[in-house]
């Protein structure tokens, strides 16, 4: 019998919520174990091995030491999967890229002398693909469990996963939600990649764009819609800062 691929799960700067989503697959985790051996997954097991084929990596890269560790993971793994918004695009960790690292350290730690401490040696936040090549992306904050499963099965079957390139509105309409704009709110759904089953608007919370923008918020007809709903460009810029600070529309292959 063919040997099962060995999988390792790692994290960088993040809340570990996406890893928790994997753990939350519950009995389906057993299905996963039928096709793969999990050799490292700090959140759910004590064992660790550096011998793995597939690395599933959560979190953003904040420091030279992270970068070094990620490169080492990349060297070990045949396939690298970016898990969740922090890993796929920097996500909330990029909010701080509005300021220089020195300013951020000073704001949080005041005058404490942290010189020479590599734990506090931060640069501007990077997504994984700004450091190493990424083979597969599981988008979202947190990830959608079904999409995680479809990416994993695609890897196992050696096919390209079917990740939507259309906006959240498509799934939101299928769920028969009242449009956030009609409710007097506003929403990044029209310019955000679908695949989350429009979970936020379905629970009456506007889309924050955690799966990446598929259109440029600066141009692409957003202006006309903002005017029609009496919203300012500043509103949408602020909303985009949450997950998409400094990011243009995502590339087709992500």
């Amino acid at each position, binding site marked *: 019998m063919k040997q099962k691929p060995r999988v390792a799960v790692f994290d960088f700067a993040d809340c570990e919520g996406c890893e928790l989503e994997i753990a939350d697959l519950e009995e389906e985790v057993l299905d996963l174990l039928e096709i793969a051996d999990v050799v490292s997954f700090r959140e759910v097991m004590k064992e660790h091995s550096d011998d793995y084929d597939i690395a599933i990596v959560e979190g953003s890269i904040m420091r030279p030491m992270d970068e070094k560790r990620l490169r080492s993971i990349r060297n070990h793994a045949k396939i690298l999967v970016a898990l969740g918004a922090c890993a796929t695009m920097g996500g909330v960790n990029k909010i701080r890229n509005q300021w220089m690292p020195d300013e951020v350290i000073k704001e949080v730690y005041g005058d404490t002398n942290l010189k020479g401490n590599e734990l506090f040696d931060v640069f501007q936040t990077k997504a994984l693909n700004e450091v190493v090549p990424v083979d597969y992306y599981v988008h979202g904050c947190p990830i959608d469990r079904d999409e995680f499963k479809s990416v994993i099965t695609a890897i196992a079957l050696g096919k390209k996963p079917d990740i939507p*390139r*259309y906006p959240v509105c498509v799934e939101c*309409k299928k769920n028969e939600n009242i449009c956030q*704009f009609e409710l007097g709110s506003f929403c990044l759904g029209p310019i955000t990649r679908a695949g989350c089953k429009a979970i936020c608007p379905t629970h009456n919370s506007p889309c924050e764009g955690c799966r990446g923008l598929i259109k440029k918020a600066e141009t692409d007809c957003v202006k006309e819609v903002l005017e029609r709903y009496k919203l300012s460009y500043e509103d949408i810029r602020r909303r985009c800062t949450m997950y998409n600070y400094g990011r243009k529309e995502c590339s087709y292959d992500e």
Partner: protein
Amino acid sequence: MKQIVKTITKKDFSTFVNTLIKDGSYDVVGVQAKGKCYVFDTLSSAEELRLNYDVTILPPKKYFLPQYEMLLKFSLQKPYEAKETITDSPRIIIGVHPYDIIALEQTDRHYFDQQQDNFYKKRRENTLIIGVDIQNVSERSFAASMNTNTTETGFDLLLTDIGTSYAVTIGSEKGEKLLKKYATVKDASSTDLTKIKTARNAVLKKYKQKMKIEKKDWSSLLVANYEHAIWEEHADVCMECSSCTMVCPTCFCYDVKEDVSLNLKQGNRTRTWDGCMLKDFTKVGSGEVFRDEVKERYRHRFFRKGNYLPARYGFIACVGCGRCGSACLPDIADPCNLINELAHFSSENDPGKYFIKEENEVLEKGIIHLPRSATIKNITHFNELDSLFEIELDDKKPLGHKPGQFVEISVFGYGEAPFGISTPPGNTPIFEIMVRQVGNVTKKLCSLQPGDKIGIRGPLGNGFDTKSFEGKTLLFTSGGTGMVPMRSIINHVLNPKERNKFKDIIILYGAKRPKEITFMDDVDRWKKIHDVQCELTVDRCEPSECWGGCTGLITTLFPKIQADKLDSKNTISIVIGPPVMYKFVIKCLQTLGIPDDNIYVSLERRMKCGVAKCGHCQINGVYVCKEGPVFNYAQLKQLPEAF
């Protein structure tokens, strides 16, 4: 037809609904409030009903073509196991407005057309529609302008609020039986009948949206303005979110996805609503997108409603519900506004009428989604990308195809893709296809071995009618993978039984590179036949490649045609190749004096369902999977989207 009308007091109607709910024989669905809007949902009590609603967010279409509907379950462990998964229970939908009833009748026309969709049919048969006359009109509705504000058909029962009672018009035997079994009704008096008319008329003044032209004039207005600047102007602010198509009661296109369980043991094939406003809608395996510009997609949506479906089925595929107008953030989706805006302009430009293949009888009842099991017999690799597959149907029944037809091949877990058949017709379950590795399905196919099982649907589409070519000289021009279906017809006409029915045969074949020439054995054989002229060329040839033949585009072969062989008026020319090839080759053919009527082509589009249901392969209003892939050029050139 005179319809029977009863009356039921509102109190008795509530009792009727509550009895139905309690009885449990049906899933009782009705209009209910969701915030300030309305939706169709399962009722737990008659009190939830809001029969004076204006419009629901989604039409009742969701009960017949659900947002996500599983079609097949398959096994990835057994060699071949797949079954259809129709699971639907009896249902009653209460409170459907006339425009939505008419939209369902239109959807029936499409899904019951020729190859009936058994899933849709089952849901329709399982469902009773209790309609209700409109009492309040949504801000964007223009149903009165579309004559869809009332209806005489399409319901089992129809309610009209006439004060303390509802008038109940009986529309079907099923409806009558339901009423008899569960409700207390009286015969309607002539006063009641007058009240129905009064109630319907009173609503008319509530319409704010009105169309400036007659519904019947949509089609000509659109056709005259095919190249109008309005499409681009509106497309510039379109967000491409496809909300307009998602909420539309007459949009019925779908995409098909495949999901596999985490242990890779089984999976399912599911269809889900798709929208022609989305860019990937027309994308084929090789990556080509056939309606690339937003303008083209935006225009397509209106033409589909106002021109393509009217030409095919005889109705405007818009019922004036106004949902798209409300759902569109930049407010460019409302057909009433667009038509009114266009009505200000007139244009000389007329791209011509769209041809539709004549209706045949219903071909096959109810098995359009389930593939037949087949076995890969042999695989021959032409080069690193292209391989020839010999396939045998496991039921050993002949495939029964015409040259030019195609099959949909399933590799469970990976999906389904269309392939041209490259063997001539014959009384055999064995046939060949060529596979070029471009997407998930083709790559997986190429990793399979002889003996492995795959699924086949087909033969599908319109092939070549070689009978009509008899007595003529045949000129075959193919480029690249165009040789795949071309080989089928060439070998058919070269069959000794057929050969004497045709005059000379000329074969022109071009490939990008020498190594991309496929079917070399056939080509060598054709070259040796004395009354066949066979010419080859390659676009370019690296010094490292061995090639003694002609170099240059396919058009360089035309001067080689032996002039004495070519009686242009009596020559049939068949052209199959990549999209870019047609324009140049057809020019050469016209220079030779071959009439457009004598030119046949075969086109590639995204043929997802293969049975003219899912909508992806349309060229203007023509389904490539049904009217094509083989087309007569004289007809096809009328379609602006063809080349």
